């Protein structure tokens, strides 16, 4: 189970992709995309983050599967924090109970 050596070429390709996505997201922010702006910006951010995590941080090449579980768990738990907190803010007033 030796450590995998990722080639420099892979890193450079990933870097080019990251720069391209950055230019894309900066450019798109100047255009009025209405409701889609936020979703698109977040999607691009997620792709950039995945590129860094999978390639620069070697997760794609990691032999220990537990590393994948840890990474997924971290973001999933962040998701729990965001989603369940938002259930309060998004549903205030739904039931017509005074003060709630």
């Amino acid at each position, binding site marked *: 189970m030796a450590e995998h050596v990722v080639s420099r070429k892979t890193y450079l390709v990933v870097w080019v992709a990251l720069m391209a996505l950055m230019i894309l*997201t900066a450019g798109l922010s100047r255009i009025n995309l*209405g409701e889609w702006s*936020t979703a698109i910006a977040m999607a691009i951010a997620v792709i950039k983050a995945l590129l*860094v995590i999978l390639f620069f*941080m*070697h997760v794609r090449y990691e032999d220990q599967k537990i590393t994948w579980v840890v990474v997924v768990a971290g973001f999933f738990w962040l998701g729990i*924090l965001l989603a369940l907190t938002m259930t309060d803010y998004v549903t205030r007033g739904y039931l017509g109970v005074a003060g709630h």
Partner: protein
Amino acid sequence: MHDSTVVAARGLRHHFADMEQQRASATLGMWVFLITEIMFFGGLFAAYLVYRTTHFEAWAIGSAHMDFWIGTINTVILLCSSLLVALSVHAIQVGQNRLCAIYLWIASAMGVAFLVLKGIEYHAHYVEGAVPGSLWRLQVADSRTVQMFFYIYFVMTGLHALHVTIGIGLLAVIGGYAAKGRYSPTYHNPVHVSGLYWHFVDVVWIFLYPLLYLIPHPKA
């Protein structure tokens, strides 16, 4: 099989059975630490999300007062520094200690450049009167809530900058050890885990950038 008569490889700690166990533990350990950081920043992202949802206009106004170009250049700086850190790991994996150190030092210097730009940006906010609290002088609609946006902006980027500062020191020190020949293709866990830390700092910024600088302007 794993008793003390085995000659320990250079850098092997006594409680580990072999280098592979040590390397795997170091990597897993850094990842578990990084998810604590995800949750630490996560609390701030939760606060951001709540107020962006309930006070979108104020958030958009605040974002419009951000310096788009400093934010963008800083993003470029961090992405490039991440490349260099990844290349430094490759360098040590093939035994190029000196090159590894140089990459780490340049990445560290780029971190400094990031902080310098951030400092210039903060100063500009101060001059403009965009510091929430008693120094606030921005004339905007819904001024109280826009102050909250700026407060979250300062706390999120401030916390991020603190992590960048730690990373700058870390990369510089590890670069120094690499230059002195402390690491080799068989043992370079500190380079690897420092790299993981730096990439994480980059990932946080990848999200901060669109969330703080690129909020779409509300339709007139």
